[in-house]
């Protein structure tokens, strides 16, 4: 398989802690360089996207900085998130309250999101307030002041957010899954970090992180909507005022385990079990196999769509869960939309299936999902199934480009992956995937025997016993009949997960992320 990952990293062997040392050296080097070569002139053209679009009198900004949690110092998990979230909490000329007041005065907003690789800062304003908004946006990006009292408040807020991961079972299962599937890798901790680490952050940590990573070479930016040339030039020039430099870092390659592994997250009094089943993938969006994988993921379980196999078998046929989906890239929805948000760019990706049945059915649903995953590797899809999936993926692309802010997001993601024709040739690349290739690609990329399973359960020991026993429970909705599904259900129940006691780990939700 072609591995065409984008990485700034050296790929020499070694453990990631040692590599992080190398990375820190690079960071320090860049910091030094950054201080020595203060930028003059605008940011390079290949770092900026301009999409002038007639439409609503609205201007959209989007700045993407390679300063995500993968750059957290080993002993300071959560620092990237912490730094990013303080950007709009005070600048050289404006206090946090003043920023909020002035943004509200003009009905504008700024949001900051943080993922493993990048921080994304978006801004939105009515074009009649373009100048007023831009002066605030520019200061947040280039002149944050990180006031001491805001650092203290920021720590409290971040600790609250860590608590919210434990509260929300969907988020809890997802975070545990990512931490475990990327164990030993720079993605292997929550972007919010741990309570202990956050409690010890101080202003100096933040300032150092900012100066080291918010450098010109780490930035991609976009402006769109009702914009004029003078604003574009100003934006380019101001981005150019960031210190020069580009942060390099190194990662180990995430690896597949040889046998399944289960993490049971014990949380009292659950009635429902969130299940995450999957493994790391060798490739990301830059691989030619992305397109067939995209089709396979869509066929198996397009997010919140009803035509996916998982949805049909788990929900429509058996009524076991509200949803059942599959992902070939890390997925974060765009608000209430079913679409994937932009700015979730990653060098290393994973495959995952997700459902959340009544707790009694957790084992059956794990087996059912694994059976559907396995089928992709053993049974060719029909021509009709493939064509229908291709039509969906190709025709649905219009929504990924529907609004100016989404277009900016797509174009910046494209630049980040260094795939200059990703958007323009997407439909073409989907349509040209040979039908015959899908099963081969599934065999190459999907490994049901090497999955990580995360389940949120009320009683870990009991769940472990159930996974190790020969019996698998199935409780259908009251009043519904098993009918002709009985023989299939019996087959699913009889599947052997091939788990040994040592493959199953029980962790308490209350002890996580401390």
């Amino acid at each position, binding site marked *: 398989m072609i591995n065409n990952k984008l990485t700034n990293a050296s790929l020499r062997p070694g453990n990631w802690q040692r590599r992080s040392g190398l990375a820190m050296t690079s960071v320090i080097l860049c910091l030094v360089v950054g201080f020595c070569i203060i930028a003059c002139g605008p940011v390079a053209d290949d770092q900026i996207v301009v999409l002038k679009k*007639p439409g*609503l*009198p*609205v201007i959209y900004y989007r700045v993407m900085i390679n300063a995500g949690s993968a750059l957290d110092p080993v002993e300071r998990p959560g620092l990237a998130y912490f730094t990013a979230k303080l950007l709009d909490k005070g600048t050289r000329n404006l206090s946090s*309250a003043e920023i*909020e*007041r002035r*943004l*509200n*005065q003009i*009905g504008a907003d700024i949001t900051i999101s943080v993922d493993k690789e990048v921080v994304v800062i978006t801004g*939105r304003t*009515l*074009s*009649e307030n373009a100048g007023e908004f831009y002066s605030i946006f520019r200061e947040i990006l280039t002149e944050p002041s990180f006031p001491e009292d805001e650092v203290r*408040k920021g720590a409290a*807020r971040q600790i*609250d957010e860590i*608590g*919210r991961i434990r*509260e929300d079972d*969907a988020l809890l299962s997802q975070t545990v899954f990512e931490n475990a599937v990327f164990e030993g890798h720079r993605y292997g901790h929550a972007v919010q970090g741990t309570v202990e680490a956050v409690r010890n952050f101080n202003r100096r940590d933040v300032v150092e992180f900012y100066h080291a990573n918010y450098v010109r070479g780490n930035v991609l930016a976009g402006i769109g909507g*009702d914009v004029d040339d003078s604003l574009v030039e100003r934006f380019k020039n101001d981005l150019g005022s960031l210190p020069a430099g580009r942060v390099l870092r190194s990662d180990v390659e995430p690896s597949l385990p040889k046998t399944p592994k289960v993490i049971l997250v014990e*949380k*009292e*009094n*659950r*009635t*429902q079990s969130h299940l995450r089943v999957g493994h790391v993938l060798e490739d990301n969006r830059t691989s030619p196999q992305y397109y067939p994988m995209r089709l396979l993921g869509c066929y198996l379980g397009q997010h919140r*769509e*009803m*035509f996916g196999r998982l949805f049909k078998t788990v*929900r*429509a*046929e*058996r009524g*076991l*869960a*509200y949803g059942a989906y599959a992902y070939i890239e890390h997925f974060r929805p765009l608000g209430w939309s*079913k*679409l994937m948000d932009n700015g979730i760019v990653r060098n290393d990706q994973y495959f995952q299936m997700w459902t*959340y049945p009544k707790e009694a059915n957790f084992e059956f649903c794990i087996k059912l999902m694994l059976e559907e995953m396995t089928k992709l590797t053993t049974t060719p899809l029909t021509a009709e199934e493939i064509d229908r999936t291709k*039509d*969906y993926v*190709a*025709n649905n692309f*219009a*929504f990924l480009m*529907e*609004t*100016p*802010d989404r277009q900016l997001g797509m174009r910046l993601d494209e630049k980040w992956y260094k795939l200059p024709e990703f958007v323009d040739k997407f439909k073409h690349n989907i349509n040209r995937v040979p039908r015959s290739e899908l099963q081969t690609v599934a065999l190459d990329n999907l490994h049901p025997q090497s999955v990580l399973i995360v389940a949120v359960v009320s009683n870990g020991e009991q769940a472990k016993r159930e996974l190790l026993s020969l019996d698998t429970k199935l409780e*259908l*909705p*009251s*009043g*519904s009949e098993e*009918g002709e599904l009985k023989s299939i259900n019996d087959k699913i129940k009889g599947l052997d997960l091939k788990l040994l006691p040592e493959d199953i780990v029980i962790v308490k*939700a*209350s002890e996580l992320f401390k």
Partner: protein
Amino acid sequence: MRKFPSIVLMFFLISSTMVCAAGFDITVDESKLNNGLTVLIAPDSTAVTVSVFTFVNAGSRDEDRAGVTGLAHVFEHMMFRGTEKYPVFSDAVSPLGAETNAWTTNDYTAYFLNAESRFLDKMLDIESDRIRNLIFTNETFRTELGPVKEERRRGVVDDPEGFLSVELERLAYTIHTYHHPVIGWEEDLEQNMTSDDGLQFKNRHYVPNNCVLVISGNVAVDEARKAVEKYYGDWKPGEAYTSLVLPEPKQTEERVKNFTWKDDETSPLMRIAFHIPSANQDFESLAAMNLINEVLFSNSGRLTRQLQNDLTLVESISGDGEMRKDPSLEIISARLRKGASLAEVRDSVYSELRRISTTVISDEELDRARNNLRARMIYGLNSPSRIASSLGVNRVITGNYRALMQLFELYASVSPEKIRILASEVFIPTNRTVVTLVPKSGI
């Protein structure tokens, strides 16, 4: 106050969304078929997609018989099953690359199908077919109750925020059907509901004279009208249904209920609710209440600043007065930081509510609120789907889609004194319902 003249001009230039001096306008072709189906068409030649929304004028409010709470929502699920012509709905729409979904509220149920505009004819074919010819058996109905119950577990039983919202309305309404949640009571979903109930609900409410069809996006009005007539013209109207919903009597004393959650992973939560007029009774009050919520709970709002930013007693605090057909609730929701005092937060909120009831809001604060609300309305019109949704919601709740534009204008014109009077009438102890929730081991 900052004016919005350029918005007006821009709208005029770019699409069918236009103006008058005081606000904005969207070109909408409104018509009614002979069978009573209301049709709104909002063309926009700059769009590449088209959105088809079907609003059924029935929600959980209309579950006015015992034992069927949650039926409107269950029926929404059933609508994604199939017909004789299109046995699997999702297989029919997926080749279009369509976005499709639905939601149920107290007052209405909305279905949408969005796709590239070249698919409009097919979209109308599929949508008209399922609303008229849906087939289901008792077995599929019972199977679909499974996902509904799992949705309830996720959103209510295992979710402290959802749980508390349900308990708040249960306490605030005594005889009106807003008393029960859209998702329904567990016993009704588990035991009482049958496919016959579903069929009866369909025959009663899923009729053309109780529906609003909204089409927005890259369409020509004449062609869209013809297509609508082709697919919906011979849909037979239903008999008028007399609602059994009882008006909620005026609340005369404060109601309070405190809950302890089943685990320790939640933060303490508080909801404070006040009855407010319905959008139909007093549209100006809706605008005034939205302005109050901006003044108190926007990012720079008084209570956000005080409780979240300065005192750091809450993780978040918000206020929302939902637009409903019948008298609604203004709901203040606070998520406290662990260790913070519920009483301290509650008293701070009450103190600010007294202030806003007795002292008019400053021009600066009010301008900020007006600008923010109006800007957000503009931002919200950035796709055919958002436009169709906004038009339809306003049409089914108020009877007039132009309520959307009126609200924009009212944000500019509601007087500070009107806002103060509304606050003084609403924020009184006898009109108040309070629910709190603390973790299992307490705060």
